[in-house]
């Protein structure tokens, strides 16, 4: 038998616990974004035993353009040139593809396209950046040895050696290179090499709100990119028939993406 005092106590306990349950914030389905590449910071960087991979998840890209903004800010890229950009693909019911990229997606995409007459079947965003090819056409054509593949797999430009002949700009199948109007030398996305050497993620990966851009070490078996690349999912590279063997992979990219 329960006396009045204990009954009131129990009811109050229950009410308080119940109301706490209501107020307690629910941990929604959040994406954990790591801020650093493990195993680099504070250690000596072994340039000969590194392998990195970049994965772009097309299905998660919302075209906000924060990657483009971060990229411009990180390098003070001159207006009109883009190290990375976001393309919008619109597919009509006649299977015609409309691609546009106003300001490289720097201002985001605020409005739908109005110049398409037919009904739209599908639309998606494709972020583009350097593919870091293992057989890089830009490296093959450079006449002065200013573009090279570093031992850790990065295609870099030696600003002091480059003569600005723009041969590499023509050779790149992905059009990621441009001639910097200020320094007059070829410039391209480096996957933020300076950040990686300090154990930080590339700026575009750092700011991506949806996790559409993923970066990590292939030597680290716990990294997300390792798990995705070794896993069963379908990944594609751009212009595979060119035989460039990119280290940039696309997840969920449709056949139309070039």
């Amino acid at each position, binding site marked *: 038998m329960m006396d009045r005092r204990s009954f009131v106590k129990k009811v109050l306990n229950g009410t308080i616990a119940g109301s706490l349950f209501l*107020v307690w914030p629910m941990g929604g389905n959040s994406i954990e974004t790591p801020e650093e590449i493990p195993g680099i910071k504070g250690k000596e960087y072994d340039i000969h035993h590194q392998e990195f991979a970049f994965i772009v998840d097309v299905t998660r890209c919302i075209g906000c353009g924060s990657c483009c903004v971060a990229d411009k800010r990180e390098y003070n890229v001159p207006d009109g040139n883009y190290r990375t950009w976001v393309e919008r693909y619109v597919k009509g019911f006649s299977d015609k593809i409309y691609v546009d990229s106003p300001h490289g997606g720097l201002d985001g995409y605020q409005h739908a396209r109005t110049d398409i007459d037919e009904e739209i079947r599908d639309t998606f965003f494709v972020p583009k950046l350097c593919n870091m090819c293992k057989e890089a056409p830009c490296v093959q054509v450079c006449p002065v040895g200013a573009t090279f593949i570093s031992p850790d797999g990065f295609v870099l430009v030696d600003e002091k050696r480059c003569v600005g002949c723009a041969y590499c700009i023509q050779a790149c199948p992905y059009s990621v290179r441009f001639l910097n109007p200020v320094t007059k030398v070829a410039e391209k996305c480096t996957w933020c090499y300076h950040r990686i050497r300090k154990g930080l993620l590339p700026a575009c990966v750092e700011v991506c*709100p949806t996790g559409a851009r993923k970066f990590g070490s292939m030597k680290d078996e716990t990294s997300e990119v390792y798990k995705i690349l070794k896993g069963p999912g379908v990944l594609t590279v751009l212009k595979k028939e060119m035989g460039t063997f990119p280290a940039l992979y696309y997840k969920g990219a449709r056949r139309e993406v070039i």
Partner: protein
Amino acid sequence: MDLSYRMRLLIVVLSIGVLAGGGLLFKQLLLPDSFGDYGPYRADAITEAALVPIRHGTNTSCFKCHSHEAKIHKKGRHQTISCEFCHGTYADHAKDGKKIGTLPVKKEKEITTLCLRCHNTEIKARHEEVIKTVAMPNHLKDQNVKLTHNCNQCHQVHAPLKYIIRAKQITGLMEAGS
């Protein structure tokens, strides 16, 4: 006869030596220091590429000082968003843990424009499982607010559902109690 043959041989050997030595010297003078350490390029260029100044920090670096914002930001749905995308780069604001400049604060319509960069339904590529989108101005009409309202008048920008959830809890409790 014999002497002139030896002389000629000597001249040939010497000239080859001089040419080779001169060539090597010339190469040494022309090639940059670290050329060829890893391959046919300047190895120092890799070091130079690694020394480009970092301009973006991480959210953790912002939260070191802004603990109040950190508390709200980490709990909310906007936890995956980088501080620096909306506010500007770390390098413009702080150096060695000290403030060196003020970052611009977004105001009124700028906030709505910023929100709609991601949350606009008009762009069909935004899937429900990735992001919640709204159509403007229908969203304002549906919520019975003035069409001149900015997003931040109802939504806490760091944790967009903070006030909404709280308001629903209060009204929900009141409805149940009445």
